[in-house]
């Protein structure tokens, strides 16, 4: 008897909740869902996420503090080697930089994106499913709005897609659905940079590069273009690692490596200037 009753009521609840879901989907796809609904969830979740994240970071710091001497010696040696490498790289970059400065002037890019006003934020939660979105602990109250650009370590990591009162959702440039209008900082060729989703957190792909004269080469720097609607010009995306001509021989595509560590993003900067 009892079992039968509970089966009927399960179907009844299912029916009501399916209707509720359909209603929610309809409302939110039309942008009619009141903002307070998301905020309500955020008030419970984000303080807890913030707490856990800071405890985890603190623990990680302690562990690295007590790391034994040997690993520090090893690390020191590695770092020295790396310094030598970087010094060499720096010389090359210096040369490239002079060239870039000229090109920037040519393309009317903002010389220093360091001058944009920024808000520092912590990454407190990540979407562990198909999408590369994460939650930061700053929101409308801190001057954040949708479409603002998000940087980490001097490179573009994404844009704000939803700003709530005290937190925001950021879509990473590694997301499948992320398309960034970019350009080769060395040659000025335009292209589109797309994320690879969960397939890769260290590389992005680019396509439709208008490189008919074949000047672009592996190692070139890709930055956000001056024709993007959302992204401010000249923000670093990464360096070309693969380049091949498309079948039409007019455009080319390939891959680029990102400079940031997307799997361990902790601190980000949100540029509070919107592209006009």
């Amino acid at each position, binding site marked *: 008897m009892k*079992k039968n009753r*509970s*089966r009927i*009521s*399960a179907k009844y*609840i*299912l029916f009501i*909740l*399916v209707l*509720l*879901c*359909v*209603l*929610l*989907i309809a*409302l*939110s*796809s039309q942008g009619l*869902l009141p903002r307070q*609904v*998301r905020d*309500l*969830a*955020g008030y*419970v*979740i984000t303080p*807890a*996420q913030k707490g*856990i*994240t800071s405890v*985890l970071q603190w623990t990680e710091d302690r562990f690295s503090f007590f790391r034994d001497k040997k690993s520090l010696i090893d690390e020191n040696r590695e770092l020295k080697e790396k310094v030598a490498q970087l010094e060499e790289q720096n010389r090359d970059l210096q040369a490239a930089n002079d060239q870039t400065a000229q090109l920037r002037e040519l393309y009317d890019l903002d010389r220093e994106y360091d001058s944009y006003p920024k808000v520092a934020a912590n990454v*407190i*939660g*990540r*979407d*562990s*499913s*198909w*999408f590369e*979105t994460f*939650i930061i602990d700053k929101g409308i109250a801190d001057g954040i709005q949708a479409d603002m650009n998000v940087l980490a370590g001097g490179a573009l990591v994404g844009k704000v*897609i*939803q700003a709530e009162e005290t937190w925001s*959702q950021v879509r990473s440039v590694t997301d*499948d*659905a992320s398309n960034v209008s970019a350009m080769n900082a060395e040659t000025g060729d335009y292209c589109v940079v797309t994320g690879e*989703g*969960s*397939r*890769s*957190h260290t590389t992005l792909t680019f396509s439709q590069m208008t490189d008919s004269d074949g000047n672009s080469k592996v190692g070139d720097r890709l930055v956000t273009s001056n024709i993007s609607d959302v992204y401010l010009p000249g923000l670093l995306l990464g360096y070309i690692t693969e380049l091949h001509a498309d079948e039409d021989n007019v455009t080319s595509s390939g891959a680029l490596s990102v400079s940031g560590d997307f*799997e*361990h*993003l*902790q601190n980000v900067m949100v540029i509070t200037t919107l592209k006009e």
Partner: protein
Amino acid sequence: MTRPVVYGALLILCFLLQTTLTPWLLIAGVFPNILLVFVLTFAQFRGSATGLVLGFFSGLLWDLMFGSIVGYYALLYMLLGYLAGFASRLFFEYDLKMALLIFGAGDLLLGLTVYVTLFLMQGRFQFFAYLRGYILPETVYTLGVSVIFYSIFYLINNRLCSLERKKEGYFAG
């Protein structure tokens, strides 16, 4: 009133574990779906009604925090919880093999549905790339982790059952 409170706390705890531990436990770009294990486990223990209600709230929380369309994951998790609930009529006690079968099937079904509705519809036809790169690794990882969570949830459920028996004086399991 004990059960709803315990369910609510577990739901939030699973959500927090899943969203904050990611950078530390990410393997091959995927992370286990602890929230789904929670929903499917209690659906097996308590039946379809519990499964679908827990699925609805779990999915809804995910939608609110990460989704662009609210109601999508709520609907998906709810249906999975409802389906897993039918197993409660066949199995009563701790049955890890059956549970793993349900977790595996549930996570695969979730992955396939998400691929078809959100990716295939967008013209992303590389099905095998998504299967190898995301759906299968996530299912395997989830199965590995689910053994621990299933056991914990089993103990919690037992505890709740014995509390209820004491209070109401009859078997409610």
